[in-house]
């Protein structure tokens, strides 16, 4: 398989701003080209837009606003993992030889229609994500004897880490008591257990081996890709305390990269809700079944930023279409030793985990320098 590398990126702060999606898209693309002056926009073969926004023709619009006339221009939507799906598409265009240079831009408004999957009627009137997250939390707590207080450590850790991320929505730190005393949304979920929808944009540019070596001084390579969709409907999940699509996607990605989980030094995990982080850590293989919270506790109390260094979705906010790209940018920065106070020591291999709709679909990327 041809090598595909990450040449550069652009990202702007996640906010609650009420702005047009077209303007939000341009924010990070503009930042990307400002930060990577060697890239000639005439050489961009494809522009892919990742979003759940209902506006039409966004990729040609972004291309026009950014002064690009690409061969390939279209949008990609897959709810919360639209971002990494777009990166996989970009990879495929390059690996197939159809493109040498692909811009991927993700953006979302705080009021994204992608938060609720209307199609899934098996959820009855319980279509908001807080309901599947509550079922996950109840099931995980029962199966492994975990308490609400223990799960509350996930937002405590991730908001703390987000403090070191200038683009994160959260600027606050919280104690376990704050999480426990935050608004109770359901019996098994409090406000601070949730990632927040927000306005945000992130861009990344991928290239063929030749282009990457020509345009980047410290290239990062995508060496593993795994994707799995088990269903679209939440009630088809075989387990509510683990993530089958994540397990399969991770296995595929690690196999492709010829790595095992012990080789991974830093990872971005899709913590849409508190319980998702230990569940994902276990399904990926970082921790044994039921041991995810033990790992999180140890990382938190030793100030080890190995998992979700940018603050995860809970600390950063979750602009759906931009999230997977922002996660990939974080791992790129980590591998380039360019993550400031969030920097994890000796980061050589990184992993991105991005999922959608109650883990009915997952994407896992392995990145190396």
């Amino acid at each position, binding site marked *: 398989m041809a090598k595909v590398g990450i040449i550069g990126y652009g990202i702007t702060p996640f906010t609650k701003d009420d702005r047009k999606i077209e303007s939000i898209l341009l924010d990070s693309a503009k930042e990307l080209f400002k930060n990577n002056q060697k890239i000639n926009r005439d050489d961009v073969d494809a522009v892919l837009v990742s979003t759940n926004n209902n506006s039409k023709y966004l990729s040609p619009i972004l291309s026009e606003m950014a002064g690009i006339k690409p061969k390939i221009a279209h949008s990609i939507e897959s709810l919360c993992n639209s971002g990494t799906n777009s990166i996989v598409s970009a990879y495929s265009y390059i690996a197939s030889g159809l493109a040498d240079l692909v811009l991927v831009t993700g953006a979302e408004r705080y009021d994204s229609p992608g938060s609720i999957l209307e*199609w899934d*009627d098996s959820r009855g009137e319980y279509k908001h994500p807080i309901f599947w997250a509550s079922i996950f939390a109840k099931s995980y707590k029962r199966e492994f004897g975990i308490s609400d207080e223990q799960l509350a450590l996930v937002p405590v850790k991730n908001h703390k880490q987000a403090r070191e991320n200038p683009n994160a929505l959260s600027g606050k730190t919280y104690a376990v008591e704050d999480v426990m005393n935050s608004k109770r949304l359901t*019996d098994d979920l409090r406000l601070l257990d949730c990632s927040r929808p927000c306005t945000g944009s992130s861009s990344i540019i991928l290239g063929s081996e030749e282009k990457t070596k020509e345009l980047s001084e410290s290239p990062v390579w995508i060496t593993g890709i795994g994707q799995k969709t088990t269903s679209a*409907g939440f009630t088809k999940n075989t387990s509510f305390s683990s993530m089958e699509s994540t397990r399969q996607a991770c296995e595929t990605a690690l196999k492709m990269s010829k790595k095992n989980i012990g080789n991974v030094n830093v990872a971005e995990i899709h913590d849409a809700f508190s319980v998702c982080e230990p569940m994902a850590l276990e399904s990926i293989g970082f921790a044994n079944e039921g041991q995810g919270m033990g790992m999180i506790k140890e990382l938190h109390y030793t100030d080890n930023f190995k998992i979700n260094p940018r603050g995860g979705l809970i600390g950063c906010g979750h602009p759906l279409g931009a999230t997977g790209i922002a996660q990939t940018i974080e791992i790129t920065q980590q591998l380039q030793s360019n993550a400031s106070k969030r920097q994890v020591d000796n980061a050589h291999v990184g992993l991105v985990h991005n999922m959608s709709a109650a883990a009915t679909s997952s994407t896992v990327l392995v990145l190396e320098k």
Partner: protein
Amino acid sequence: MSFETKLNEGIFCIPECNECKKIVWPPAEFCSHCFGTVSPKEGDFEGKIIEFSSKNGQCFCVVEFEKAFRIIATISKTPGIGQSVKMSKCGISDGNYSFIVI
């Protein structure tokens, strides 16, 4: 007559393929296995509680029917895992399916 038409009349049916007899869930016009046409099968179905939680004192639960498909339903009292339940009321409200089990 579709599953949805029946549901709108307050009747809970199981969508079954006319060809291969498999249950098709979520309800659809055609079978996802053999693409045969699907008809709603009426009956007094028993479900089992798989998981539950509650919001503002109202319990909601994942219920499995026929060991084949699951829904999220409302239940008036806190249930137990594995508890047997039956559909007491169902319908379509504000465009959403609505299920209440006892």
